[in-house]
């Protein structure tokens, strides 16, 4: 990289700092607001410095919940979200790596039509097929369950395509060497293809976990019980109150808590897949 000198470098840095401020300010406000007294916020007298209610607000948020709207502790919502996001991410990776393996390495009747059918489902996200999907989930008595939350979102054309592209770059000689070494299809998949796909799986996991964590419409539709709702749905419900004051510190604390797992996943997994990128050689 070319080092910019003097004035030009300062200009670049100033522009970057302005950008960071614009992005980070709302997050800062959320953190600050989660430590203030609700009355102050409601009066519009919130200061931009941290207030003194940090522990009591977060304790109430995680273990008790709001007094009015949802009455569900956010800790439980986070658990629901976590189970859903993990199930979606792991399920998608498992299903799509297996289907990509079948498509790339096996010759069977209607292989290409099947590939195209998978490909076409890219055009049918949950929002488009929401009524039939809801009907099926309801008929299978999966409303208000983890299975109902995650199963319909697991099938993934994107991840299948990604693994297919990756598998096609793996040299055929590796498969042939495995065959001569006495490894059947399952052994080859397990001993060679999976370890080689680690980097791809880590990258996909980051994307898919965040995708799953941020689901809103689908959980909103199929969960009615408060103890099954996810954090994204919970935040929305907390804000709407009929005749009481919105408990803003709790809402903001929930928002901050909702940000933590994705941040954690990105930070941890990024290290893992950068290491993977450096290690893998093709």
């Amino acid at each position, binding site marked *: 990289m070319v080092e910019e000198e003097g004035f030009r470098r300062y200009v670049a840095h100033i522009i970057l700092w302005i950008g960071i401020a614009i992005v980070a300010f709302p997050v800062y406000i959320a953190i600050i607001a989660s430590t203030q007294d609700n009355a102050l916020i409601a009066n519009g007298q919130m200061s931009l410095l941290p207030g003194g209610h940090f522990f009591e607000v977060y304790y109430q948020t995680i273990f008790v919940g709001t007094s009015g709207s949802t009455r569900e502790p956010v800790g439980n919502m986070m658990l629901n979200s976590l189970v859903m996001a993990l199930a979606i991410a792991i399920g998608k990776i498992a299903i799509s790596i297996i289907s990509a393996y079948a498509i790339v390495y096996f010759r069977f009747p209607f292989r290409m039509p099947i590939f195209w059918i998978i490909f076409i489902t890219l055009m049918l996200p949950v929002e488009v097929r929401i009524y039939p999907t809801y009907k099926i989930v309801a008929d299978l008595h999966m409303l208000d369950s983890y299975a109902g939350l995650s199963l319909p979102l697991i099938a993934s054309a994107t991840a299948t395509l990604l693994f297919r592209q990756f598998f096609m770059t793996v040299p055929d*000689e590796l498969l042939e060497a495995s*065959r*001569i070494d006495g*490894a059947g299809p399952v052994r080859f998949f397990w001993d060679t293809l999976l370890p080689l796909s680690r980097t791809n799986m880590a990258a996909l996991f980051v994307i898919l976990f965040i995708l799953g964590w941020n689901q809103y419409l689908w959980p909103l539709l199929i969960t009615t019980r408060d103890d099954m709702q996810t954090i994204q749905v919970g935040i929305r419900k907390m804000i709407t109150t009929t005749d009481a004051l919105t408990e803003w510190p709790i809402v903001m604390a929930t928002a901050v808590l909702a940000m933590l797992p994705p941040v954690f996943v990105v930070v941890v997994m990024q290290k893992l897949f950068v290491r993977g990128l450096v290690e893998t050689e093709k």
Partner: protein
Amino acid sequence: MANVTLRNVRKTYPGGFEAIKGVDVDVGDGQFCVLVGPSGCGKSTLLRMVAGLETVTGGEIDIGGRVVNQVEPADRDIAMVFQNYALYPHMSVYNNMAYGLRNRGMAEAEIKTRVEEAARVLELTSMLERKPRQLSGGQRQRVAMGRAIVRQPKVFLFDEPLSNLDAKLRIAMRVEIRKLQRRLNTTSIYVTHDQLEAMTLADILVVMNGGQVEQVGNPLAIYEKPATTFVASFIGAPPMNLMSIHQDEIKSQLGDGRASEAGILGIRPEDFVITDQTPAGGIALPLTVEAIERVGAETFIYGARAHDEQRIAANPGELPPGEIIVRIPGTEAPAIGEKIRVAAVRAKLHLFSGDGRTRVEA
């Protein structure tokens, strides 16, 4: 230890393309067989058919007295070294070699003995814990060899194993492979497009072209008596000079008896001498020197013959018509543009039929 016998082996792809058009080869126990030919001649396909990586659509492949047409690669008791080595990138050198043995359910102690023995032979002992990417090309090549050795198979198969190495290393590894094969005395089939590798390694040389065997035999015998013009120009570098006989100059020198049967005359570059005399029954040609290559121990003279209009079937590696290469020892050579006369004795002449498909004995 085993013989490998191919009986009328054929390969036709579903599209109708015939890659192997009936090959018969018999490789004796412990022999080193080299398949050589230009790219696309089917030599790799044939090797992969022996390995079981390609189906056989006709004929029989027999390894150690057992027809293996329908046998899985792992059960054929063969080991293969690939052109790009095909090492498992995520496994250590040790595990690369041990993988095939583990899949066979061999005891870990026995695996350890075998891998360490192979590593010692191949001088890989200090690298057993490394990953393939931490090795140089030559070392990877040796790991690939090690993976084949530890299996103690009946047959080694090599698919152009040296073509990814630089020239010096290639020569060193060539010698190593030969020594190793002699020591283990394992039947081997080796594919290459490099005629020098083929000549130096082979007990039996199989020259292939267009999915067919052109000639099988001892490398020197093939060199001395090539059966077709293809073999003549493919084996030997620089290639044999081939010229049409239906020209007065050559025809009159050969005499009517032989010239009437044969259509093409071949003379190896090193069989020419620069001289004013014409040996009895031999051939003398006037040349104009066009280019000179001095490589130290020897010198190549490229000369043009006057009035050579007729074209001979163009095979890969063949000279353009009318051009003659002469190879002389030392560095003394005529000047460019000089007119010289080169001659070859009768015993060094090769005669072929007009289509180049058969050899005509003088």
